[in-house]
């Protein structure tokens, strides 16, 4: 099993050690270790329900881990009080799997929200930036005054992305950014993620099922299985690895160590 978590000479932006999270008797993350380097784009792949979203929420401090540490720039955020956590989160941008737009606010106000509330940007300037980000995700000015309920789920996803990158955060988290998008728009979003991470010098942590997208946007890929990172390495080594879980997952095979339970209600 490959465990290339050490890249000498690079700063670690997010350092996760022994992360454990269970819901009742169900252990989702089990003693998980992972490093995300400053300036890289890391993609986490893994089957549905393996706990990818839970992992992100633990890093963001939205879920409290049962054990383990999550260090952001060397500061352990587990158990941090809400004011200190808020300071850490000002440098974060997050796209939720189901967009999680504020449905009482217009699209424009959604995108401008972080700028106005957390960064004290004047409203006019915030709206200008928001319009810019909206057009970057392919949504013109005519969408600005609409409410989330009036958009399709793919559009909501793009608004969520615009909201995540609006504050030009230091670290970006994307939970399945291309799910529910058509291939062309998926490509646009992939490019936007690469651009946000590379040009703005941000660090990206993306979760996806979409292997094509994963290969396009990642410097490194990590695979989550059974509560742990079973493989992590540079993207071009993904195909070559002899890790049976990775092999089965990226080739979409039914036979292999990953047991898919169909028609079970457990």
């Amino acid at each position: 099993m490959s465990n290339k978590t050490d890249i000498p000479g690079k700063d670690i932006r997010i350092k996760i050690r022994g992360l454990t999270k269970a819901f009742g008797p169900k252990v989702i993350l089990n003693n998980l270790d992972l490093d995300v380097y400053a300036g890289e784009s890391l993609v986490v792949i893994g089957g549905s329900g393996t706990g990818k979203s839970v992992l992100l929420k633990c890093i963001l401090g939205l879920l409290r881990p049962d054990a383990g540490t999550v260090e952001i720039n060397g500061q352990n955020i587990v158990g941090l009080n809400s004011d200190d956590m808020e300071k850490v989160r000002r440098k974060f941008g997050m796209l939720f799997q189901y967009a999680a737009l504020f449905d009482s606010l217009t699209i424009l106000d959604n995108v401008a929200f972080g700028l106005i509330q957390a960064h004290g940007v004047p409203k006019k300037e915030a709206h200008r930036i928001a319009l810019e980000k909206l057009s970057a995700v392919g949504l013109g000015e005519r969408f600005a005054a609409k409410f989330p309920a009036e958009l399709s789920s793919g559009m909501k996803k793009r608004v969520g992305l615009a909201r995540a990158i609006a504050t030009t955060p230091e670290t970006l988290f994307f939970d399945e950014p291309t799910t529910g998008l058509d291939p062309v728009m998926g490509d646009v979003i992939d490019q936007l993620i690469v651009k946000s991470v590379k040009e703005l010098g941000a660090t990206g942590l993306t979760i996806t099922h979409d292997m094509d997208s994963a290969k396009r946007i990642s410097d490194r890929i990590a695979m989550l299985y059974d509560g742990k990172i079973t493989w992590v390495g540079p993207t071009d080594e993904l195909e070559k690895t002899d890790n049976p879980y990775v092999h089965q997952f990226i080739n979409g095979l039914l036979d292999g160590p990953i047991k898919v339970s169909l028609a079970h209600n457990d």
Partner: protein
Amino acid sequence: MPILQPLGNLTLRFLEIVGRLSIFAGTAISHCFRPPFYPKLILKQMIEVGYYSLPVVGLTAIFTGMVLALQSYTGFARFSAESAIPNVVIVSITRELGPVLAGLMVAGRVGAAMAAEIGTMRVTEQIDALYTLATNPFKYLIAPRVIAGVLTLPLLVLVADTIGVFGGYLVSVHKLGFNPATYIKNTIDFMENLDVISGLVKAAAFGFIITLMGCYHGFHSRGGAQGVGAATTNAVVSASILILTFNYIITELFFSI
């Protein structure tokens, strides 16, 4: 002992809820006094709590005042004390019926709406989104609602008091044959500041209870639509019970001064 265990579990669960609620209330209160404040959001909630509750509270108040005059007449006529009706109406409405009925009506209207709105935000991860945008939901969602509740309920109760007393006046004058001028004079002469003040103190407390219960149950809702539905029911039921409980406690406090 098999009967002791469920009893113990029940006690533990009760204590857990009281503990969680106290922490929630403490956090909410502390954020009411710490900047940033959101005057626009507070105003919006005040309109939601106060203005849109006027019809429902007004109707409740007028019929309560009317029935109060009528019922008192039935009772007082038995020992020829009909002239005490204005006194009974003003005292009952300002001290008791105004705040309690307005509180219960607003609990049904506003408490439920808040629980549903915040509960939906919870299950659709909008609350998580607030956190990741470095905005504390206690400041942005809960404090404005609690402040609006505490400020608006007393105003609403003042209106309810006035309408309720007017309802009593209507029945007394037009049905029971009271002299209008005498009725009004008796009402004003008999009314004491403490009556109204105790009612307004109750109203502020009820405003706190209603908004806190709405926010608490919404904030802790789980699952999907079903969870939000349960949160809504729990918000209304717990607010109503707490209103009646604290109504007694506050009455008792004012009784001793």
